[in-house]
């Protein structure tokens, strides 16, 4: 047997790890994962293998065609709006993927680029300054200006570690929000009178829509197609870049910056390039944003938007273009669904049950836990009902301050949970608050519990989670949604840092 036909080398033994198996990032862990996927007969394994076999360009074409046909298949304004929003997010996520996914840089000022572009477009095409540039001039200008901004921001940090880039960009993002919010009375160091540069907290409105070939784009689906078109171009161009020496250099510097530098790659210049390219994509997205919403506002470009786009990229899989697209779709759809209690309720219970089914093995344990949870709920309900009648007279929420008692789910929940009447009185907030804190503590305890104690702890945790959900979280969706994003990021990093479609990485420790 000649050398070329020898079986693959076995990976070298990892440094002595501990109890819970090889640690994230070491050779052994990654090698084992590939084995697991190859051998896995479960659903996830099969799906992964299936997805891996379909060539990416085919997926891309299918995706583009499907999205392009959405306005043809439906004229429901709500669906169209959600689709267009999602497409814009997809574009954003694709741009962020360059710096975070390919070059491994933490660019936390990305949303400031997005906002800068949107505002610049607004200033060039609105009554604010009275100028109305034509689209073919304003969009490239905005993109160019944003790229320059990206360069300028990354320039001072190029010689330092990625951590410092993170802080400077984060700071910049914060400053951008301050600037846009206070830009109504902007005073250049006391000289001259105050200017209204950014319209302050109310933003700039009456921004011109795009005009393409003399045609004014005023319909929602127009912007869906524009964003889709932008995405197609960006995706192609970026994929080509990724398969070239630049992409390779980005991947090298992500793996080992020092070694990349010594192997002839100008690391600082490459880092600048990654941030600038990302900024360019954000620039395009910003221009589209300004035209589509016909207005720009400071609150759209703050920390929450940053966390959202990061959650999309990380969930989908940083470094994988199809991954971030999937991540963007998933997160945005999730956020949409969570807006209305009736819909989000289904998602919540679905996730809860899937989690149980997936994680609690064998079947007997699962049955025990389910039975335990049901019993627990009924018992608590009975006790509370006897002691505090108002505590169980409430109903489940169905929208802004509406409650419903109809439907089989409502009936189950009313008897299984403790739903105090008037949950949204101030006095009743406190029950929910204590419950929330207790829930957090229980979840943390669950992650360290072992064996039987884990199942025992699971029962009250699940019940409490449903309780908190129904009485606090479900209605305050404007807080619940961001809260969930934070949780997603934390959990992803601990459990599956490569996201859904990324490849697990080995780290030089």
């Amino acid at each position, binding site marked *: 047997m000649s050398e070329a036909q020898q079986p693959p080398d076995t990976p070298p033994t990892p440094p002595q790890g501990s109890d819970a198996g090889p640690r994230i990032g070491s050779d052994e862990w990654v090698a084992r994962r590939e084995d697991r996927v190859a051998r896995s007969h479960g659903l996830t394994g099969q799906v992964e293998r299936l997805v891996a076999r379909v060539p990416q360009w085919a997926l891309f074409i299918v995706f583009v065609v499907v999205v392009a046909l959405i306005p043809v298949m439906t004229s429901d304004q709500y669906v169209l709006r959600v689709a267009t929003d999602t497409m814009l997010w997809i574009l954003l996520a694709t741009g962020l993927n360059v710096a975070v996914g390919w070059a491994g840089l933490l660019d936390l000022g990305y949303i400031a680029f997005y906002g800068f572009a949107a505002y610049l477009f607004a200033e060039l095409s609105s009554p604010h300054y009275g100028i109305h540039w034509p689209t073919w001039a304003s969009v490239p200008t905005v993109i160019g200006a944003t790229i320059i901004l990206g360069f300028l921001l990354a320039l001072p940090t190029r010689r330092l570690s990625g951590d410092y880039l993170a802080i400077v960009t984060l700071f910049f993002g914060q400053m951008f929000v301050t600037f846009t919010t206070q830009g109504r009375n902007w005073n250049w160091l006391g000289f001259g009178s105050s200017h209204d540069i950014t319209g302050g907290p109310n933003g700039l409105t009456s921004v011109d829509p795009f005009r393409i070939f003399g045609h004014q784009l005023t319909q929602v689906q127009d912007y869906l197609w524009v964003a889709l078109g932008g995405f197609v171009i960006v995706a192609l*161009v970026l994929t080509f*870049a990724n398969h070239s020496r630049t992409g390779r250099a980005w991947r*090298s510097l992500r793996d080992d910056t020092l070694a990349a530098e010594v192997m002839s790659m100008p690391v600082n210049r490459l880092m600048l390039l990654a941030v600038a390219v990302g900024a360019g994509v954000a620039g395009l997205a910003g221009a589209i944003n300004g035209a589509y919403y016909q207005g720009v506002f400071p609150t759209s470009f703050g920390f929450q938007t940053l966390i959202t786009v990061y959650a999309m990229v990380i969930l989908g899989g940083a470094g994988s273009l199809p991954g971030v697209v999937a991540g963007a779709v998933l997160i945005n759809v999730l956020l949409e669904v969570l807006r209305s209690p009736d819909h989000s309720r289904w998602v919540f219970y679905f996730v809860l049950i899937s989690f149980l089914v997936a994680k609690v093995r064998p079947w007997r344990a699962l049955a025990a836990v389910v039975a335990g949870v049901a019993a627990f709920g009924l018992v608590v309900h009975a006790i509370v009902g006897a002691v505090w009648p108002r505590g169980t007279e409430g109903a489940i929420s169905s929208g802004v301050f509406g409650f419903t008692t109809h439907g089989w789910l409502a009936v189950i929940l009313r008897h299984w949970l403790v739903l105090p009447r008037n949950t949204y009185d101030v006095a009743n907030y406190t029950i929910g608050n204590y419950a929330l804190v207790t829930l957090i503590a229980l979840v943390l305890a669950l992650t360290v519990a072992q064996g039987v104690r884990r199942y025992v702890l699971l029962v009250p945790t699940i019940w409490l989670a449903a309780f908190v959900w129904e009485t606090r979280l479900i209605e305050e969706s404007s807080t619940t949604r961001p809260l969930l994003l934070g949780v997603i990021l934390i959990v992803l990093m601990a459990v599956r840092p490569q996201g859904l479609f990324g490849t697990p990485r080995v780290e030089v420790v």
Partner: protein
Amino acid sequence: MADPILELRGVGKSFGGLRVIDQLDLDVLPHEIVSVIGPNGAGKTTLFNLISGLYGPDTGTIRFEQESIVGLAPHQITNRGIARTFQTLRLFLNMSVKENVIAATYGHTKATILESMLRLPRSRREERESAQFAEERLAFFGQRLMGYRWNQPAYSLSYANRRRLEIARATATRPKLLMLDEPAAGMNPVETHEITELIGQLRDEGGYTILVIEHDMHVVEGISDRVVALDHGVKVAEGTFEAVATDPRVVEAYLGTGTAERK
């Protein structure tokens, strides 16, 4: 007598209060194989780091092909023709074997990102050529890094193959001076023998000048035209292997005082 390809004069470096390299003079002639030996902490890797530009010397000059390279960024020094490997391997573990080598051709390709984005002819041509070149570099090691191995991630390689890959990657930068930091570390006798032959081949077939840090005296004996011994950052001996190996100061550096007297 040819001009030295690498010339160090009076080079000194301190970290904090510790003087790691002190008044070092060193000449390396073209196509020579020079080994640098010395006990741990003698400053050998620091020497490599100084030459490859990871930090700058406090005093002295470093000239490559008669031009000073002090103050240049590491990638610029590499582009001038100096490549190195690392004592603790520093491969791009998540990239494939072939990609590791192609990555190092960056300095010799010119396609800008714009050209790559638009798939202009130059960028496509350079891609093909770099891939070809990488295959040639890998072929140097026989069949070990060929065929199906090209697309395997670097983290799946055995230790010895990783060392080989790192050398292949370094040669992909088209260096004139190749610096190998403990190439035989952790290898068994068979592999060590191979490496010894390999280094000779690198010089003969590749025309490289080679500077090697090594602890294994069999290797040093087998490859060196000249040996330089360092101790506590100071050059204590220089010459042929026989001369240096028996030099009392070298023996003292490795084994301590008292032994030298007995010789």
